[in-house]
């Protein structure tokens, strides 16, 4: 039926031990595609290429696993790569890694599509006199750079924040070849670090480690810690651990726009833009007045003065948050044994962020959270320095620099155009880019030396003390690329660096130090091998942080509301632009990955587009409806994007996700227009990039834009009384006891059956989804795309409702803007025991197998589509078209799962191939499959372990215990008696 893509056997090499000197992978790849490309011809004539040299540890047909570290953001999650015949097929979280402990976010999963991106730069390029890039050899490229660094012109190297050995190498190399190194990323945490240092002591200049699992109450000023903030997998996991416990953490979220984190909070305090500081101060004052004054006396006096003018009523009026909500937040904080107050996210990136962070830090100190929920030993250093970058730009503009090296961080896209970086880069004599894509920045380069992706290169990452995480290559480079470290070593001049022929050697040299510091008995080679297997070296930091006593903290005395730029705004506009980082594209780096573009945003359910969230009232005043094109403009730029009208943003806020609007970067990124949101942001004197800082005008533009929204049908986000995603309220009811007449349907209600229920002799696979732990992050959706070769269909076909996702993250919004009732529910095939889809298939293409699963046999399917009609959960997807993947993306296809042709139905299989694999292993060992041995891709991916999979026949398995939980229910079962194998546990929320 369809290609496994690579039927070639074995171009495996032992990556861990042999390094990167590998034979021509590309050549074999070429042969592979040749056999698959001739689809119409007789595919039966195939060639097998055996390995030339064998390796007993690499068996063709069996996967090899490599531990590594995710480099998609700075969180430093551990990952495992699953490789078949030398190509990486799956990325999964590493369960031994202390940061993510097995889960991985959607962007982490999509790293594969960055790696197999067809738009990657495939060999070194040089811009000719006509401005067209021409391929050159690596040797020529190196010699050109060596020439450029031979003289004493001023040179700079602009990268994203680096870590570990590469950071050290870049530092050494910069000194070596006289280059100044600058690190920059748009969404940095510099203000948080600064405030931490100011309040807790100068040595703590960094982001402390937060433990959400220990906090009873969290007051959060806009930090999207379940989405992209600092280390979302880690925080989600901690948060979920608490949410699943007997005493779940109560979250107050203060922000002007409902983020995914806000949707998961118990209390959402929608405030006016820029008033978070006021609320924080009011809370601090309230706490002080409640006797929480765990501060030096001098500081207390200072605070008393600065908080003198703050009264709850004034704050409530200015921020549009009800005063009792603020008081209640303060009260809950005061009563809680442990708590946590944080601020961050896009909505905090105003011109008073520093003050806000200081107040938050003070509240934490007042409440005694340091040492409890805030761990200063595990400090994340903030390396991005926008102040320095700004001065660099200024100096380039003053023609002080002649050479700029830049990595793949694409600063031209993320630095707002008002900072004039675009002008500056044109003034340079030589711009060398190490980017792997022809993005906005590398388009301006004279020379591109494509760096290998992190799946192809060596490295390490030290997010905070005690975690040294290794990055190792899991396959040979897809294209003719070289790792950044290797390139720098090649370009170095000093003997010190020249002694390392490869970056791997350099890395090992650095790890000698870690080995020495670890104090383990084993020798280095053993330590190194163990670390490679484990994914790094992990230890608890021993020291105990001592809080120093700050003598003074700058806390502005006035009622400080953030101010917003309104340069040349024609009519007096109160509207403020809120650019925020989305779980889809983050700051723009994930924009050229079809999985991420096709992933519906959890809050708006929009895919493949940029959109503007506009408040219902504001939209009504301008006669704007969802789907209308709107023009958002200020002095600096304009956006033309479709509107998404919602109650969940403040009337004065227009929220637009960051990351799309690329002019270059690749076919998928540039297919999403609308404009670059960064370019709307005015330059200012601040030392960090303020995102939430400008007023805009809003106009209805001509025309409509058909948005690919998976839930855009009227009323499709209201579940009413259908009880699809259920919520129990903690204070009103004991969890489990449900209100009104639905009690009968609860729990273990067994309806009368017409037919004798089937007994499954060996296994009965089932799943439990704990909605209390599900954040809606959609990692499972992307993991499913990767595992099951699900095609991405593109915007046009998606607007027709033909997306292929096997796992739909449903979002219901039954409340009002005051009383939020947002529920997320990951819905996959429910594998019903009384499946309505099965008896209607005329050819047994779908049936019930011995293991209690609803099986779909693709090659038996005729395509009557009756099953999809009769599926009450609407989980079946039909292949309306045959989707082709551009080379080399087909290398990602999982050989365990067939690719479906057009005209065939498909659906979630509970990753039946993984079950088969586990049974295979169990059979070899003469035992049954153990609990937890099989984990479908979605279960494996879940950062919060909201999904649990296992054998329902085994009374001791986790899944069968959870299925009997008080909160357990099955969707629609009490209406339709479908007997699903998937149980859900009620979401838990505190009643407002």
């Amino acid at each position, binding site marked *: *039926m*369809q*290609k*496994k893509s690579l*039927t070639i*056997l*074995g171009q495996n090499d032992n990556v861990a031990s042999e390094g990167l000197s590998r*034979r021509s992978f590309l050549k*074999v790849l070429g*042969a592979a595609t040749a056999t698959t490309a001739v*689809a*119409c011809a*007789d*595919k*039966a*004539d*195939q*060639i*097998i*290429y*055996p*390995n*030339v*040299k*064998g390796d007993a540890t690499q*068996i*063709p*047909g*069996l996967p090899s696993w490599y531990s590594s570290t995710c480099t998609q953001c700075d969180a430093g999650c551990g990952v495992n790569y699953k490789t078949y015949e030398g190509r990486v097929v799956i990325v999964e979280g590493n369960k031994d890694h202390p940061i993510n402990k097995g889960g991985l976010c959607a962007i982490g999963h999509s790293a594969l599509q960055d790696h197999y991106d067809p738009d990657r730069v495939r060999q070194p390029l040089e811009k000719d006199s006509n401005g067209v890039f021409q391929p050159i050899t690596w040797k020529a490229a190196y010699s050109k750079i060596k020439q450029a660094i031979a003289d004493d012109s001023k040179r700079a190297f602009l990268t994203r924040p680096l870590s570990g050995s590469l950071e050290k190498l870049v530092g050494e190399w910069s000194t070596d070849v006289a280059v100044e190194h600058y690190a920059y990323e748009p969404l940095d945490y510099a203000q948080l670090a600064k405030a931490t240092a100011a309040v807790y002591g100068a040595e703590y200049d960094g982001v402390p480690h937060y433990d959400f699992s220990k906090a009873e109450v969290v007051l959060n000023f806009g930090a999207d810690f379940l989405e992209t903030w600092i280390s979302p997998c880690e925080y989600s996991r901690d948060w979920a651990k608490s949410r699943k416990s007997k005493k779940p953490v109560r979250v107050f979220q203060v922000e002007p726009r409902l983020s995914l984190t806000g949707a998961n909070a118990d209390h959402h305090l929608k405030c006016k833009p820029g008033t978070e500081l006021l609320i924080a101060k009011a809370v601090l004052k309230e706490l002080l007045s409640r006797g929480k004054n765990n501060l030096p006396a001098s500081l207390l006096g200072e605070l008393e003065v600065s908080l003198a003018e703050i009264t709850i009523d004034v704050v409530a009026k200015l921020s549009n948050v009800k005063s009792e909500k603020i008081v209640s937040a303060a009260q809950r904080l005061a009563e809680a044994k442990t708590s946590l107050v944080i601020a961050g996210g896009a909505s905090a990136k105003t011109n008073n962020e520093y003050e806000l962070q200081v107040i938050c830090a003070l509240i934490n100190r007042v409440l005694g959270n340091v040492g409890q929920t805030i761990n200063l030993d595990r400090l994340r250093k903030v390396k991005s320095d926008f102040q320095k970058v700004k001065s660099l730009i200024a100096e380039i503009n003053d023609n002080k620099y002649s050479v700029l090296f830049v990595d793949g961080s694409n600063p031209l896209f993320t630095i707002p155009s008002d900072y004039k970086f675009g002008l500056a880069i044109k003034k340079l004599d030589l711009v060398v880019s190490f980017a792997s894509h022809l993005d906005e920045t590398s388009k301006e380069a004279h020379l591109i030396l494509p760096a290998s992706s992190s799946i192809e290169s060596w490295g390490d990452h030290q997010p905070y003390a005690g975690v040294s995480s290794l990055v190792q290559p899991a396959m040979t480079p897809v294209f003719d690329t070289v790792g950044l470290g290797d390139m720098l070593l090649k370009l170095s001049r000093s003997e010190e660096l020249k002694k390392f022929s490869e970056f791997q050697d350099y890395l090992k040299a650095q790890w000698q130090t870690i080995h020495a510091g670890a104090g383990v008995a084993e020798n280095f080679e053993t330590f190194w091998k163990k670390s490679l297997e484990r994914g790094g070296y992990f230890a608890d930091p021993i020291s105990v942080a001592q809080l120093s006593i700050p003598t003074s903290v700058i806390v502005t005395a006035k009622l400080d509301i953030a101010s917003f730029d309104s340069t040349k705004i024609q009519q007096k506009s109160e509207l403020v632009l809120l650019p925020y980082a989305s779980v889809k594209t983050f700051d723009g780096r994930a924009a050229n990955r079809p999985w991420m573009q096709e992933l519906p945003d959890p809050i708006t359910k929009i895919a493949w587009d940029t959109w503007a969230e506009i408040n219902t009232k504001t939209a009504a005043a301008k006669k704007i409806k969802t789907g209308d094109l709107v023009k958002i403009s200020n002095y600096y730029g304009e956006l033309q994007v479709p509107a998404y009208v919602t109650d969940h943003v403040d009337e004065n806020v227009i929220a637009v996700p960051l990351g799309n609007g690329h002019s270059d970067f690749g076919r998928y990124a540039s*297919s999403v227009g609308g404009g670059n949101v960064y370019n709307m942001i005015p330059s200012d004197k601040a030392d960090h990039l303020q995102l939430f800082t400008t007023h805009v005008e809003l106009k209805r533009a001509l025309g409509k834009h058909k948005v690919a929204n998976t839930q855009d049908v009227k009323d499709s986000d209201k579940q009413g009384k259908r009880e699809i995603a259920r919520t129990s309220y903690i204070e009103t009811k004991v969890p489990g006891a449900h209100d009104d007449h639905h009690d009968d349907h609860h729990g273990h209600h067994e309806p009368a059956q017409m037919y004798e229920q089937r007994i499954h002799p060996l296994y009965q696979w089932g799943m439990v989804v704990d909605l209390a732990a599900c954040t809606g992050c959609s990692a499972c959706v992307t993991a499913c795309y990767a595992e099951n070769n699900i*095609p*991405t*269909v*593109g915007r*046009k*076909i998606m607007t027709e409702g033909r997306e292929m996702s096997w796992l739909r993250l449903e979002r219901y919004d039954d409340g009002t803007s005051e009383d939020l009732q947002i529920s997320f529910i990951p819905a996959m095939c429910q594998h019903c025991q009384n499946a309505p889809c099965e008896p209607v298939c005329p050819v047994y293409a779908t*049936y019930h*197998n011995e293991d209690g699963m609803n*099986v779909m*046999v*693709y*090659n*038996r399917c005729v395509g009557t589509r009756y099953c999809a009609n009769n599926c009450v959960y609407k989980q079946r997807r039909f292949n309306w*078209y*045959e*989707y*082709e*993947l551009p080379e080399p993306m087909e290398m990602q296809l999982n050989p*365990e*799962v*067939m*690719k479906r*042709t*057009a*005209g065939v139905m498909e659906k979630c*299989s509970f990753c*039946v191939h993984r079950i*088969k694999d586990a049974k*295979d292993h169990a059979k*070899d060992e003469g035992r049954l499959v153990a609990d937890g041995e099989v984990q479908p891709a979605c279960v494996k991916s879940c950062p919060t372990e909201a999904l649990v999979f296992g054998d329902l026949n085994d009374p001791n398995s986790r899944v069968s215990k959870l299925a009997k939980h008080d909160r357990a229910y099955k969707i629609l079962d009490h209406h339709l008696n479908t007997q699903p194998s998937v149980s859900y546990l009620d979401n838990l929320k505190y009643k407002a």
Partner: protein
Amino acid sequence: MLGLISSKFLRNNRYYPFALLVILLCSTFVGNSFAEDAAGYQSVGKRAGVWNDGQAALWDLNIIDHFHYFGPVARARGHKPQQPIKFSHVTHVQKNKMECQFCHWTSAKSPYAAIPEVQNCMGCHSLIGGTTPEQQAEITKIKEYYTKGEPIPWAKVHVMPDYVKFNHKRHVKAGVGCQECHGQIQEMDEVERVSSMKMGWCIDCHRERGANIDCTVCHH
């Protein structure tokens, strides 16, 4: 319009077949022009399935198995592709009494019974140069591949459709002999496909031995 209909051309019966043909072509064109809409989609390709599956449809009948006129020839019995090296199982297995798993060493470990690595061949052939000139010539070829570091492009004899997942390991461990599927391979100078390897053939054996006949055993 009326004028056209009443024109002499249409009144003359002789031209009706011709007119019919023209209309037929035009209509197909109109139909196809709708199709261009779909062709404009980024990732949509023409369906490969129509022709291949259409051929395969006939294979449902047992009798087709014995003819080579329908469907891919390489999937029929007796398929004997030309190999880059004249490897003889007779020499290796029958004469020199080598075990199958000496070369196909992954067959009990992996779903794939891999073709041996070139290095594996060289393990013996660095010492054994062959007795006849033909053998020597063939062995020299192996050496050439090995020194160049290139894999030998063996032609696949037993090609299964992509929707079938066959696991060698399970079969070998269950004690199914190589010959049961591959025929008397030790007597083959050139490997040829002996079994039809169609689904009914698999199922017959599975039923006989009481092996699992759940669909997911092979299809997922």
